[in-house]
């Protein structure tokens, strides 16, 4: 049963991706990108990764759709049609896709208990959480306790990204005013 659900969801993802490439109306493309994220969120739910599904639905379908709309308001609503239709990009994409698929042949089977990722530190986390941390969600214990220092790094990355955006475009009105001051200064 699960395999059929996954096949249908993956098929929907492929169809939506093709539609995003084909559609020329940018508003429709942005909305389709949001739909893509929602379907991807359902895929994550079917993989039992509910927390990733939260994130995908909120970031992919919610916030990034909004940011695309904000960018769209600064430009036109239709994509410019480029008459030059070269086959080189298609070949490059197909070659890279084939290389990636070839690469997956060496990966361990999905969910394989003997895979290196399952035999390294994961068993320790699963066994030790009940005794030394005593909270039920192992994902949270790994994230916040065993690997707290890594997560601090992630938070600093998010912090840096936010500061960068605020510095670049968050104070647009201020830089505009300064620009005006400069111009009036030149006149005087």
């Amino acid at each position: 049963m699960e395999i059929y659900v996954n096949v249908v969801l993956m098929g929907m993802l492929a169809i939506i991706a093709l539609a995003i490439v084909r559609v020329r109306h940018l508003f429709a493309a942005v909305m389709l990108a949001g739909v893509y994220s929602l379907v991807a969120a359902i895929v994550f739910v079917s993989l039992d990764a509910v927390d990733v599904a939260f994130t995908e639905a909120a970031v992919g379908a919610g916030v990034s759709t909004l940011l695309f709309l904000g960018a769209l308001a600064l430009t036109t609503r239709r994509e410019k049609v480029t008459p030059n239709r070269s086959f080189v990009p298609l070949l490059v994409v197909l070659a890279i896709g084939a290389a990636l698929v070839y690469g997956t042949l060496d990966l361990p089977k999905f969910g394989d208990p003997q895979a290196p990722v399952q035999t390294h530190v994961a068993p320790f986390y699963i066994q030790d959480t009940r005794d030394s941390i005593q909270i039920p969600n192992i994902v949270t214990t790994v994230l916040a306790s065993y690997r707290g220092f890594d997560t601090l790094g992630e938070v600093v990355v998010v912090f840096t990204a936010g500061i960068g955006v605020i510095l670049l475009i968050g104070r647009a009105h201020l830089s505009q005013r300064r620009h005006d001051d400069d111009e009036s200064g030149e006149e005087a």
Partner: protein
Amino acid sequence: MKYRLAERHKLLRVITKMLVPPIMLFGLYVQFHGDYGPGGGFQAGIIFATGIALYGIVFGLDKAKAVFPMGWARNMIAGGVLLYAGTGVWSMLQGAQFLNYNVLAHEVAHAQHYGILLVEFGVGMTVAGVIIAIFYSFAGRPPRMSDEDW
């Protein structure tokens, strides 16, 4: 026929008013229930920020900034990182390694619980602040398209 501004998109306005409080409540639930259920600071911060962003796109940026000023978002960005790192420094002051929560309370289970709750809250604050600040920054740029062009 021209609508008055308050009457435009009445359905969206009513539905948004109904949706925003449960979204924020769910964000807080994911934040503080992260030890027991799926989710944690990253998810909670984003869900909370989505509530503000939804309010912003329906009621306008000015009203959203009146509810949640940009300064709050900026303070949350820095405050979350400080809370996270501060928890680590606090555990150092108690004589353990950086971010070793075991010394934060007498019982190890409680100590781990407090430590995780504190750092997850720091994560949630920073993420929510960053998303809200980015939304305000993007939405605050003057648009070149009129409403009819969409």
